[in-house]
């Protein structure tokens, strides 16, 4: 039986000030088998400002009981929402981390995996993974269609991972409802190494407090979360805490190799993006050399990207010299993007691509299949794919926390903070992070660690072939698996790809835990 304590009182060393605790039976999440749910009203005003510094942390939680049926089997689970302090090795309180944990009732702790999920930004709350991916309930978006109105339906998730692992969705410091504890400020933890350090301390504390130190441990990152998680993995392994598996979805392993983070004059080779441009061109029936994002078509364009486009782009970056016209024509046939556009910016960045593929239209950054007419409401923020889903997730977290999860607060749940403006990106002696060495170090310490990379064919900001190129730096035989599917950056939103991911995750967890 996994211990799921009811309302936890703060650790003695924390000045737990509970200004308004309301305990009621059944916090709106329902109740199973006569187990009482406990709602919680947290009076703290959590802030995502750089200078914010919490003086009254508490570790109280709202606990609700639920059930979901997966493949015909009912799974009773407990949802726990609240804060837990990350503590330094000298037991100093570092930050009050907000999390939502979904734990299956009655499982044996030593055999039951626990997975910590992290979105990215930096500065993004883990609301996307929490409400969109593999929790017992999820939002219905219908992406890439843009017809679903807000509020998005919140439904039982047939692809939930709760049959495989307990799931903990964690907001990094200065996002969601997480805040640094005085004398620290949010800024204290706003850096590649600082952030991973405080999250290591949170993960260790959560496992200890919940009696889960013997459980197989998995980490799941998305976007900047895929930068965060390798550093966190190395730090946990260094600390002596084994990590069984790491899932990297929509990855940016090396800021220095990804041309989407580059502003101004181009210096980075964008060849890793060509297969994604081609998949998007095929989606709109504009590519003539390929007809779809089938494995065969992707293999064809990927070969061309590596053999011809990469060296051509390198020459253009070095000297401004365009390749022979037939090379430019080939790129047009792979993508549908005009030769004139290629001639203008031969090392093609995603912004030029998505604004020029279709006249008078803007394609989504996160999902190139989502488009909007220039000047239309979905185009207003220059990313139709984000503009379509963001209001639905923003609205949902405001009702799911107090409703489904019984957690109420006067604070604003911050989906996107300004952390990136003052983030310390330096890492490993570089001005911008490259976390391939972190994975390499973690694998040295723990050769049984396994890594799964997932990504969407139509994601224009962390393209799948760039992930392949970055991963190829690891030594031959490294325990990595890669799977890419139709869809965008939030790949799980695609109703066709989510079941494929679920099956791949189940196989990955079985392999990484040595299960039959």
């Amino acid at each position, binding site marked *: 039986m996994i211990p799921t304590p009811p309302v936890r009182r703060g650790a003695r060393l924390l000045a737990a000030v509970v200004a*308004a605790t309301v305990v009621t039976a059944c916090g709106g999440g329902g109740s199973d088998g006569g187990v009482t749910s406990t709602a919680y009203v947290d009076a703290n005003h959590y802030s995502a400002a750089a200078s914010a510094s919490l003086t009254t942390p508490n570790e109280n939680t709202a606990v609700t009981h639920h059930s979901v049926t997966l493949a015909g089997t009912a799974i009773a689970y407990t949802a726990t929402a609240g804060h837990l302090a990350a503590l330094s090795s000298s037991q100093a309180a570092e930050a009050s981390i907000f999390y939502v944990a979904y734990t299956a009732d009655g499982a044996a702790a030593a055999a039951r995996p626990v997975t910590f999920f992290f979105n990215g930004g930096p500065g*993004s709350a883990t609301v996307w993974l929490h409400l969109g991916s593999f929790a017992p309930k999820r939002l219905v978006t219908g992406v890439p269609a843009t017809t679903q109105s807000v509020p998005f339906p919140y439904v039982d998730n047939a692809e939930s991972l709760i049959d495989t692992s307990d799931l903990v969705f964690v907001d990094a410091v200065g996002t969601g409802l997480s805040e640094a504890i005085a004398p620290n400020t949010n800024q204290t933890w706003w850096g590649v190494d600082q952030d991973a350090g405080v999250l290591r301390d949170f993960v260790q504390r959560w496992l200890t407090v919940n009696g889960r130190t013997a459980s197989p441990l998995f980490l799941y990152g998305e976007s900047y979360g895929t930068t965060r998680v390798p550093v966190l993995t190395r730090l946990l392994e260094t600390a002596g805490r084994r990590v069984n598996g790491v899932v990297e979805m929509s990855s940016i392993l090396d800021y220095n190799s990804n041309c989407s983070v580059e*502003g101004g004059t181009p*210096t980075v080779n964008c060849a890793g993006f060509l297969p994604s441009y081609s998949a998007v061109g095929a989606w709109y029936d504009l590519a003539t050399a390929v007809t779809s994002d089938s494995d065969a078509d992707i293999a064809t364009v990927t070969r061309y990207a590596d053999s011809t486009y990469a060296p051509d782009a390198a020459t253009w970056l070095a000297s401004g010299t365009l390749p022979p016209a037939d090379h430019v024509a080939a790129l047009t046939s792979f993508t549908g993007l005009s030769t004139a556009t290629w001639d203008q910016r031969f090392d093609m960045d995603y912004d030029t691509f998505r604004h020029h593929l279709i006249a008078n239209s803007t394609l989504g950054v996160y999902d190139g299949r989502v488009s909007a007419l220039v000047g239309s409401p979905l185009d207003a923020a220059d990313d139709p794919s984000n503009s379509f889903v963001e209001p639905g997730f923003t609205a949902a977290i*405001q009702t799911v926390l107090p409703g489904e999860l019984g957690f109420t*607060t006067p604070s604003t749940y911050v989906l996107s903070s300004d952390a990136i403006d003052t983030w310390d990106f330096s890492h490993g002696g570089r001005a911008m992070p490259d976390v391939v060495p972190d994975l390499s170090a973690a694998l040295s310490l723990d050769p049984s660690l396994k890594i799964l990379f997932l990504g969407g064919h139509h994601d224009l900001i962390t393209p799948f072939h760039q992930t392949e190129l970055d991963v190829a*730096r690891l030594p031959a035989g490294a325990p990595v698996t890669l799977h890419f599917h139709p869809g965008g950056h939030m790949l799980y939103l695609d109703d066709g790809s989510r079941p494929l991911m679920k099956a791949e995750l189940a196989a990955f967890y079985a392999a990484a835990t040595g299960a039959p």
Partner: protein
Amino acid sequence: MRTTTLFATLWAVATLAQAAPHLDPGAPPPATQQAARAENRTRPASVGATLQSDAERHLRASFDAADTAHSGMLSREEAQAGGFGWIANHFDAIDTRHVGRVSFDDVRRYLKLPDAAASAATAK
């Protein structure tokens, strides 16, 4: 219940005031980018022995951070207290000379990392 409704309302109002979301992954500030691009001209993405030495640099930094006495050696207790619990967990296997203290070279030998001179030579 009224309190809950009031909180929900305040929350909704506050949320509407939020600025447009940042991209994820977002671009680092221009000064950071500039520094990185300058660096990258002389330091390409590491592979092979260079990647190995980049990885080793992280482990070395953790070792040095735990070695608060700056003795170049860690006891089991120092490793545990200093955040390098992995060394404490593998201590007896790393401490092949049975002296109760291990150096970073002992750790490298245990991990079968290529020796530093050979790595440096290959990295060129």
